[in-house]
């Protein structure tokens, strides 16, 4: 808690210990990718689960983002453990008071349901591709498990949606409850994680739309969605700042006080505001042919928010003075996690667009939904 001392006091720290960041850039990658995955999954539901035919083009891109980030995220999480070989202990010694312990159950549940849902959505196309006479037909016969029924996709999608909400709750709460880090210990943080997750997912969908579909109407629609998500992020940011600077919320005030005096943080705040404002204006004014720019800035904004929260938060000493190194690490070692996970994500996107009949994905055939398109678009 910030206190005001009446007397004039000057303190110079002559000897102090420097603490390195214990959560590494791998953690930034995990929280970035998993938030994109769950928000993308939620955006795929109107098209695939709730019967909105017009939402199908968006849902296909959303599911692609959800699956590729959803597979990459847990790998980043595992890499952030200093004893990754002991991950099984999470399931044997679950400590009920720890949000992380609950997360250990929620994450595999979500990823499992997500993959099952994606498989169910694509099963009819797997089957069709398996029936044709071509080189990889055997692979698709294998993937279809010998049938094309996918009536179960809807309940699977809804279950994955519930798990996605559980991920948003646990990732937000896991960080928010850490009282020792004022920058994390703010009630708004879970909402900010969710809102910036939507921004990142829409950014990735915009970039993929430009690469794969080049459908102007879809681009405009995604840009409108992005503008809405950015407006929410901006509103949350303004409310955060208003609560902190007015002192209405002591926790927010403490968070602001912990970083406000540092010029580097003032630059970060300006940078963050621009990363929201620029794509917001572009998406509104130029909804077509701006997808590359708005998409990439949106991905950047979602990533940077997490880097600032996690690495920046760990750069603030709990008892010592000044700042530690975590915010701006020097050297390539810390960035290897970032480069590695982005590389894996890119690989998975290439694999997904090459081997998965994503463009044929339609609504599940349970007797009331629409069928998939009649003309296969094979990319292999």
């Amino acid at each position: 808690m910030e206190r005001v001392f009446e007397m004039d006091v000057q303190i110079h720290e002559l000897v102090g210990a420097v603490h390195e960041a214990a959560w590494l850039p791998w953690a930034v990658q995990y929280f970035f990718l998993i938030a994109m995955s769950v928000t993308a999954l939620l955006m795929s539901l109107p098209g695939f689960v709730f019967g909105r035919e017009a939402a199908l083009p968006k849902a296909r891109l959303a599911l692609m983002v959800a699956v590729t980030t959803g597979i990459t995220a847990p790998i980043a999480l595992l890499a952030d453990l200093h004893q990754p070989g002991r991950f099984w202990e999470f399931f044997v010694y679950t400590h009920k008071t720890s949000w992380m312990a609950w997360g250990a159950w929620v994450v595999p549940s979500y990823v499992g349901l997500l993959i099952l849902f994606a498989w169910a959505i694509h099963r009819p196309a797997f089957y069709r591709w398996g029936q044709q006479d071509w080189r990889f037909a055997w692979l698709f016969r294998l993937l279809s498990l010998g049938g094309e029924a996918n009536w179960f996709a809807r309940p699977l999608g809804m279950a994955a949606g519930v798990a996605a909400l559980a991920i948003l709750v646990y990732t937000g709460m896991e960080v928010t409850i850490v009282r020792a880090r004022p920058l994390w210990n703010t009630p708004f943080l879970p909402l900010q994680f969710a809102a910036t997750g939507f921004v990142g997912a829409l950014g990735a969908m915009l970039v993929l739309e430009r690469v794969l579909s080049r459908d102007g109407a879809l681009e405009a629609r995604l840009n409108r969605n992005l503008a809405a998500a950015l407006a929410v992020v901006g509103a949350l940011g303004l409310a955060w700042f208003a609560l902190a600077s007015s002192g209405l919320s002591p926790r927010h005030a403490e968070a602001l006080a912990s970083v406000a005096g540092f010029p580097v943080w003032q630059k970060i705040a300006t940078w963050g505001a621009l990363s929201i404002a620029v794509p917001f204006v572009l998406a509104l004014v130029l909804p077509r042919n701006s997808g590359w720019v708005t998409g990439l800035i949106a991905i950047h904004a979602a990533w940077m928010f997490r880097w600032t929260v996690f690495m920046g938060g760990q750069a603030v000493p709990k008892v010592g003075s000044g700042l530690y190194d975590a915010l701006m690490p020097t050297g390539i070692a810390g960035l290897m996690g970032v480069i590695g996970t982005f590389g894996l994500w890119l690989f998975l996107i290439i694999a997904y667009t090459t081997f998965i009949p994503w463009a044929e994905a339609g609504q599940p055939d349970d007797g009331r939904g629409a069928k998939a398109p009649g003309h296969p678009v094979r990319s292999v």
Partner: protein
Amino acid sequence: MDTNRRGFLGAMGRVSIGAAATVAGAGQSATAATDPDHRTHWGMVVDLRKCIGCQACTVACIMENDVPEDAFRTHVSVYELVKDGQDPAMVMLPRLCNHCDNPPCLPVCPVEATFKAENGEVLVDASKCVGCAYCVQACPYDARFINHETQVADKCTFCFHRTSVGLLPACVETCVGGARNFGDLNDPDSEVSRMLRENEVSVLRPEMHTNPNVYYIGLDEVLDGRVAGEAAYRPPLTGEAQATHGEGL
């Protein structure tokens, strides 16, 4: 158990004279020794008036516990304080795990590797710890770290391996000025209990409500939280910020 090195050496003398006495029992008061229900609750009282910032405790801890080069289980922060334009004063502040009775590091541990031992020590089961570092984040005293040789969470144990055989923690035993005092807070006759009764004491970060078991005599309130001053260390890319930072003042 005796409170500091001088008292402990005296106790050792008594042990060598009285063959029936054990080292562990040497310092325990008669009240505590005769009560079958008595449970020891270890605590430390640091008399800052006696600390000279020699870092002997820092070195003793490193040697005793094989602490890796890039970390500390305990160290002494040193500050220069200038109040109302008066002459600068050098102030020492030994820091270590506070072995809180309400430790924030404990509930966050996902695999129950962190636990509160019978005598109040907050310990880590290194064979169980997954190295997630959630406890490192939750500790409000920056008293935990990931040991890069063992890849698990590491911290002060109050020298559990020594106290369980009747020895003082290494930092207490080596303290040159007798600033670090260690003993049973549940024993009203122990030196630490007496010090708590007879002195005005304070704890670090009282606003966190962690109920620490490390107490300080003579702690200036400007140092009991995050110290808002010019730092000794300036990271290459953010160092410019230090001079103008006035948080908390």
